[in-house]
């Protein structure tokens, strides 16, 4: 028994005194491996009585486990030290670099002689900024809201109380936070409408671009993460005629002169009257009966729109008798695809430099 104890102490000392990883690996066999005293004692087991064998075997097993643990701890400690040393040896005072790249510094002047690379903004960013600029030029502000939303802003204030069948039109992602289905990822940019009207009284002339989320399996025309642009106009005397006019003005500005918008009746809980809006086919202008973009109809469906439902006004505290308004929403990514003839939306999310650097 004392032999085992002494073998253990000896092994411990060998391990703890090893100064480096190499030294540690070198003493492994001697400490508790083939060449260790423990191994020698183990070899004597055969000649002992069963009782002795059981007792001694257990002691040997315990000692081996102890040494194994001690070895692992020592190994981790030495490795951490090595990483620290390496980090220290690679240590850089990054403010040196900052100083060197100040105007008047040496390397900066050298850089001027280098070829200048040019980076590219993402296609979706470029389309979004163009849209923002069009609407800013028409007197709109650009509003933004959170992507994580509550049920009130995404649904209830938009005239979709709990259990409203229209909620089924959106495949909503819910978060594990709070009561079930109370916190979600916004399914459209319409909650920004609600936030705008909650924050102040009309007049409001605003567009709200941003990221939205729906539980769609990715395919050529759907991504679970996508971008929408919402518009909201609330003022005295706003009519559906203005909605049609504003959409037409936008269509002209984005797609070029001669391209128009048209309205078809539809249904959304948050607008009444509601409409889908189509734009003149940007590929064939309605001249190709076999056009794949518009299926020969000459029109491409772009988004939904309508007059703000009085129930929405009531939810946010705007007087529906005094004010009327219109709203619309459409996909920015879809416009990016329209602009470039891109067939598969998933290309937008790949971030392949060969794709990005085309634009």
């Amino acid at each position, binding site marked *: 028994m004392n032999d085992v104890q002494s073998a253990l102490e000896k092994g411990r000392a060998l391990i703890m005194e090893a100064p480096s990883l190499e030294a540690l690996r070198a003493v492994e066999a001697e400490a508790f491996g083939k060449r260790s005293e423990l191994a020698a004692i183990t070899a004597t087991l055969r000649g002992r009585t069963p009782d002795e064998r059981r007792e001694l075997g257990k002691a040997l097993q315990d000692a081996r486990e102890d040494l194994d643990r001690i070895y692992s701890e020592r190994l981790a400690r030495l490795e951490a030290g090595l990483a620290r040393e390496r980090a220290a040896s690679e240590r850089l005072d990054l403010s040196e670099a*900052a100083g060197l*790249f100040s105007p008047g510094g040496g390397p900066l002047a050298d850089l001027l002689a280098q070829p200048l690379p040019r980076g590219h903004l993402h296609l979706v960013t470029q389309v979004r900024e163009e849209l923002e600029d069009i609407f800013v030029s028409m007197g709109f502000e650009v509003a933004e809201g*959170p*992507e*994580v939303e509550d049920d009130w802003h995404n649904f209830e204030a938009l005239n979709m109380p709990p259990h409203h069948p229209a909620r089924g039109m959106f495949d909503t992602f819910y978060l594990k936070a709070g009561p079930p289905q109370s916190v979600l990822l916004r399914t459209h940019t319409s909650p920004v409408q609600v936030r705008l009207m909650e924050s102040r009284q009309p007049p409001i002339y605003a567009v709200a671009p941003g990221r939205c989320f729906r539980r769609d399996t990715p395919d050529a025309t759907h991504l*679970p993460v996508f971008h929408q642009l919402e518009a909201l106009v609330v003022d005295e005397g706003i*009519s559906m005629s203005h909605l*049609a006019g504003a959409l037409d003005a936008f269509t002209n500005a984005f797609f070029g002169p001669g391209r128009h918008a048209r309205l*078809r009746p539809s249904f959304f809980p948050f607008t009444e009257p509601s409409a889908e809006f189509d734009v003149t086919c940007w590929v064939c202008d309605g001249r190709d009966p076999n056009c794949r973009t518009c299926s020969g109809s000459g029109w491409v469906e772009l988004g939904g729109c309508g007059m703000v439902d009085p129930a929405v006004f009531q939810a946010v505290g705007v007087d529906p008798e005094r004010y009327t308004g219109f709203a619309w929403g459409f996909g920015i990514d879809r416009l990016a695809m329209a602009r470039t003839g891109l067939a598969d939306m998933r290309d937008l999310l790949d971030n392949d430099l060969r794709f990005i650097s085309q634009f």
Partner: protein
Amino acid sequence: MRAPLSWLRDFTPVEGTSADIARTLSFLGLVVEGTEVVGAPLPGIVVARVLATRPHPAADRIQLVDVDLGDGEALQICCGAFNMKPGDLVPLATIGTVMPSGLPIGRRKLRGEWSNGMLCSAPELSLGPEGPEPAIYILPPGLSSPGEPVAEALGLSPDVVFDLEISPNRSDCFSMVGVARDLAAALGLPFSIPGPPYAVAEDVAPASVAILEDAGELCWRFTGTVIEEVDKADVPAFVRRRLTLAGMRSINPVVDVSNYVMLELGQPNHPYDIDRLGGRGLVVRRAGAGEAIVTLDGTARRLTPEDCVIADGEGVGVGIAGIMGGATAEISSGTTAVLLEVANFNPQAVAATGKRLGLLSEARTRFERGVDPEVAGRAISRFVELLGPRARRGETTDVRTVVQERAKIFLRTERVNLVLGTSLSPNEPAELLSRLGFEAVPNGPSTYEVTVPTWRPDCEREVDLIEEIARIYGYENIARSLPRRSIAPAGLTDYQKGRRRVRELLAGAGANEAWTSSFLSGADLARAGLSSSEALALENPLDQAQGLLRTSLLPGLLDAARFNTERQAGALSLFEIGSVFRHPSEEGQPARSGGRVGTGPQTGLVNSILEWEQLGVLAVGLDVDATYAVRAWKVLAGGLRLQSSAVEPFAAGGSGSTLDGAMAAGGSLHPGRRALAVAGGYEVGVLGELAPAVSAAYDLPGRVAFLLLDLAPLLGAPRQSWAAQSASRYPAADIDLAFVVGDDVPAAHLEATVREAAGDLAEAVALFSVWRDGSLWAGRRSLAFRLRLRAPDRTLTGAEVAEVRDRVVAAASVAHGAELRGA
């Protein structure tokens, strides 16, 4: 819903090409998803009577059929279907016929036996869908005599089927009558529903039906009608043909009539075999807790007391109200008498039960959107009429718990014109509404009291009427105009402008903008050396690899970098601006708005979730190291004209940034090559190199430089003043000073000391050389600065320059123990 034109024409004489009608429907909001032209005249296909069937001597899969075309001659046909028997009438494509598919039929030999034509299935004639097994279309017995063209025998005329997408608010348009009514209104055509005859056989007993009191709010109306001798029903051929066109399977005459009435009038109904119905009656009640009913689809459905059940006279459940019947009293070929249920249920109750059971049906679709409570009588009479004169009905028992008042709405012509931007005359809105069955009675000048028809439960408010007026008037006829408003300042906010500037600066400096997903997994975060303990989890992710919301842009950018490196992209630099999210682990942690603009207050729980915009820059390449990140930071700080900016030694959590602590803890950062980006005295982010383990985990070669900034504090940091300073016209004196100073003294600190000591005369202070020589200076290095001294109003004297030099050298020595080299 699939609507055959011939069916719509039962109610309104609509004319025109299918394209024109489809367009009219679309502009009513009844979106036409497809138009199908059916019922080609089928030339060459005639009625044949089966005389005998014989096995083919040399084949198992085909048999020989002898048919008679009316001339008494037996004509041999080879046929691959086995569902006909002698006496049946079947369609035969005669020699020389070209099938609708384009297949020409000739006299040919099949395994040695002649076939003098081809017997046809329903799909081969475009008369119905493909069945599970090959089956010849057996024509109704006694339909016509052999030899007659099949098209004539079936009364087939060319037809058009419109595949309509009905929006959830238009419950009335889940019926042919509803679609026809809209069409007639838009085209200004007459519209009427022919009234079926109403004849009760005195000797047929009235039905026994009841609604139990506790079910009164679930079931608003329940009618029962006994119809006898349905086995002698003589259902017109168009029922089966139209059902097929509408996309429903023909089952048996009684069930076909039931479906036909539902499609025509929008009233779901259910015929029960009365002889298999306990107590020969029906009772409407709430389900018992845990009660189970086996529905027609063979599945046992477990119910709760919130659900409404149709039970037989003995109280045994035989159907789930408004959704699906049970199997017990199903109609079979042996049924001789039925009890017909035509009822009206509470839409919310049907919706709730249907949703909980996940059970879709034609009945549920209609009931949960709202069925006209007054159409029941017409539906019963139509049902009996279609069964033919030999079926006999008893008196209908009609129980109602709720009789809805017809809604009355005030409508102001002025309001109509205001909302639509039209200039309709005072009576025009009333006229347009009357075409849809609304009754408008004048009530004061330019005001009407409008009574809503019972089939339009969706119309409750003046604005609903305005939409109806707009639909019939035509959205296309509304003139376009732009809002007239006084000029108001608009445009991008400072934040939005700043964000654009950041993008342009980075792209100008050679970085490419990426767009990465907002979703990732705990493994993605771990691979990037980040913790997932504060990540928000999705309740219903598309898959587990996308189960969390990103807490950092880093993993997405690393993935994008790997994607490109795997494609031999070489050196690359990517950036992204996007929202990141964190669920605060501690209660009461202040929410950061993260630069969100134009928004109202966040409410409740959402308020405690951190969401803010981050900027991430990542560079990979053989020559890349942490200095790339420093350069990117300098570009941003300079381009944004930050009043003060610095790169400070890394101290995790020192300033409460959202970035540093988590990154250091997770092992994201290279411990020796990391620093804080400071703007206006506040930390706005972290920069440097990623830990070698992280770049290895993404198979990225060499060192990976990164810059992660919180966008709002960056853009909110004070900018340089716009106050102009004229450049001095006097010559400058440059002095170079190289200091040997300890490695623990950041260059930025020494530079600040130099700058301060040099005072106003220092036009520029720039570090131009860093030199390390272990043999000369252990633990120290040489930092060489160039000071450009200049006065705005004079040429500096040698003495002035020397004084500045001495001051700087002294200050550097006192503050940092720096020794002047070569001194």
